[in-house]
C-alpha cells in the first residue's frame, strides 16, 4: 500500500535519511524502531511531504507522493499524529477534531467519525469545549490521534504515541492502536518503546543513523539478539 524506495532526505547539508526503503501492506501495523535521532520522525515527515526527499520514490497505492505538497498528500489519505502531538493549543477539542476532517470531501460522514473517535477516546468527549493547550499530555496524545482519524485516512502514521506518558496510559494507547487497526486502518508506527511496538506490530524495521539495518516480522525481531541488546535492554 505504502512503499518507500531508496529515499534520501537532507536537513541543509545533513544527510538525515540515507536511502530508506520500506513497505506497508494494507491492514498491517508496521513499526519503525530506533534510537533518538536515527531518522524515524524524518521518515514520517518525508512521507507526509513536510520534508522533501532529495531522491527516491514514495508510492501510495502506486501513486507517487514525493513531488506533491503536504496538503495534497493529506487529501490522498495520509494522516499523522506527529511528534510532539502538535495539537492547536488555542482551539477547542471539538475544533481540533474538525480540523482533522479538513481535507475530506465527504463532510457527511463526519458525524459518524466523530462518534467513532469519542468511542475510542471517551475522555475527549468530556473535554470537548476545552482549549487544546489546557489538556494533559495523555489527553493531547488522544486528541492528536483522534484528529488524524477524523480524516478517515488510508494510512495512519503514528509518531511516538507513548512519549511522556505513564505506563498505564501507554498500555491504553497501544490497546487503542490495535482497535483502530482491527477496524481497518493501516498503521505505520514509529516508536522508541520497541517492546510495546513489537508486541502489537505485524512487522518491523530497525533504523540506525538514517539507514534501515534490519527488517523482519515482529516476533522474530523481538528474538533478534541485536534488537534485544540495543532496544529492549535485555542481555
Amino acid at each position, binding site marked *: 500500500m505504502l512503499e518507500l524506495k531508496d529515499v534520501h532526505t537532507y536537513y541543509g547539508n545533513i544527510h538525515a535519511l540515507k536511502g530508506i526503503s520500506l513497505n506497508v501492506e494494507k491492514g498491517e501495523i508496521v513499526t519503525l524502531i530506533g534510537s533518538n535521532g536515527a531518522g524515524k520522525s524524518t521518515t514520517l515527515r518525508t512521507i*507526509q*511531504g*513536510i520534508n522533501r526527499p532529495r531522491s527516491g520514490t514514495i508510492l501510495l497505492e502506486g501513486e507517487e507522493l514525493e513531488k506533491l*505538497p*503536504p*496538503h495534497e498528500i*493529506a*487529501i490522498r489519505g495520509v*494522516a*499523522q499524529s*506527529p511528534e510532539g*502531538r*502538535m*495539537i*492547536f*493549543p*488555542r*482551539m477547542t477539542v471539538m*475544533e481540533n477534531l*474538525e*480540523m*482533522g476532517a*479538513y*481535507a*475530506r470531501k465527504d463532510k457527511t460522514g463526519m458525524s459518524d467519525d466523530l462518534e467513532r473517535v469519542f468511542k475510542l477516546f471517551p475522555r475527549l468527549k468530556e473535554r470537548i469545549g476545552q*482549549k*487544546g*493547550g*489546557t*489538556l494533559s499530555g495523555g489527553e*493531547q496524545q488522544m486528541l492528536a490521534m483522534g*484528529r488524524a482519524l477524523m*480524516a478517515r485516512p488510508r494510512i495512519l502514521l503514528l509518531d511516538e504515541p507513548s512519549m511522556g506518558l505513564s505506563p498505564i496510559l501507554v498500555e491504553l494507547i497501544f490497546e487503542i492502536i490495535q482497535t483502530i487497526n482491527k477496524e481497518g486502518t493501516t498503521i505505520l508506527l514509529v516508536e522508541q518503546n520497541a517492546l510495546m511496538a513489537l508486541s502489537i506490530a505485524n512487522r518491523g524495521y530497525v533504523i540506525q543513523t538514517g539507514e534501515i539495518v534490519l527488517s523482519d516480522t515482529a516476533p522474530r525481531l523481538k528474538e533478534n539478539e541485536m534488537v534485544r541488546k540495543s532496544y529492549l535492554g535485555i542481555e
Partner: protein
Amino acid sequence: MSTKAKTILRRILITVLVLYVIFLLGPIAGFDVPSIAKAIQADPRQLVQFIIVGVANGAILAIIALGYTMVYGIIELINFAHGDLYMWGVFSSLTILSLTGTLTTKDPVHIIWGIAVALIFAVVFCAVVNVAIERLAYRRLRNAPRLAPLISAIGMSFTLENIGLIWAQQSWIVPSFGTTGGASQKDYPDLLSRLFQGLGYNVNLLASSGLGLRLTIKDLLVIVLAGVLMISLRLFIQRTSLGKAMRATAQNRDAAKMLGIDIDRVISATFLIGGGLAGAAGLMAGLYNGTAWWFMGFRAGLFAFTAAVLGGIGNITGAMTGGFLIGLLASFSDGYLNARWTEAWVFAVLVLILLLRPTGLFGEQVGEKA
C-alpha cells in the same frame, strides 16, 4: 531568588524609573497634572469631545492594526508596508471619487453611490495589492532568516510611498493632485457633511440636544463601519472553515499542512483580508480627517503597529482594543498634553509595553508549544 521573582522585581524597578522620567521630563511634553485637571474642570464637555474624536480615530487605527496583527499571527512578519497600503487606500478611494465626479457634486444620491463605489474599489484594490506584495516580496523568503522578509517589507514600504508620491502628482486623476509637485498634503472632500447638509439635516447629531456636544455624522459612521468590520472579521475567523484554517495555520503551521490545509492559500487569504481592511480604513480616514498625503501611511502605520503590540501582536481582540486605546491617547495628548508631542507619547507607550509586558494586554503564552 527565583527567576520569576527577579523578573517581577526588575519590572517594578523599570516602572519606577519610567514614572520618574515621566514626571521629570513630562512637563516639557505637556504632562502637567494640575493644569490638565484645571482644564478638565473648566470644561468637562471638552473631555467628552476628545473621547469621541479619540474613539473614531481609534476605530480607524484598529482596522489598520488588524492587518498587522493577522499577518504577524500567521507568518510572524511585521509587514511594514501595511501603513503605506492604507495610504493607497486613501489615494485609490479619492481617485475613484474624482473619476466618478463625486468630488464636486452636491447631489446626495450621487454622493452616496460615489462613496459606495470608492469603498468597494479601495477594498478590492488594496486587497489585491497586498496579495501581490506577499507573492512578490515575502513568499520566497518564507524560510529565510527572519531579518530578510523584514527588510523586504521596509523596501516594499518605500516603494509604495514613492509610487504614492508620483500618484499625488497626477492632476489628470484628481485636479488638486498636481499642486506643489505632489509632496504636500491634499484635501479629501468632506463628503459626509456635504451629504447631510444637502439632505437638510444638521451635521451635528447632538445639535438640538442642548448638551453643547458635537457628535457628527462622520464620527458615527466611522465608528459604526469599523464596528461592523470588526464583528464580521471575528465571526469569519471563529466560524468559517477558512477562518479556522487561518487560526490552525497560525498556531502550528506543520500540523496545518499535515491536515490538508494549503497554507499558501491561507496566507494569501490573510493578506487579502488585511489589505481589504486597510483599503476600507483609507476611505474612512480620508472622509473623517479630510487629508490625503503620500507620507501619511508612515505615522498611521506606526501608530497601528503600536496598537497591535499594545493589544498583544497576533491577537485580534488585542489589536481592536489597542487601536481604541492609542486613538484615545493620541486625542487626549492633542487636547491636553501637547499636540507636538503626541507621537512621542504614543511611542513611549510602545517602549513601555516592550519593556514591561512584551506579550501585550491580551497576549497569551499558555500552551504555545503544546
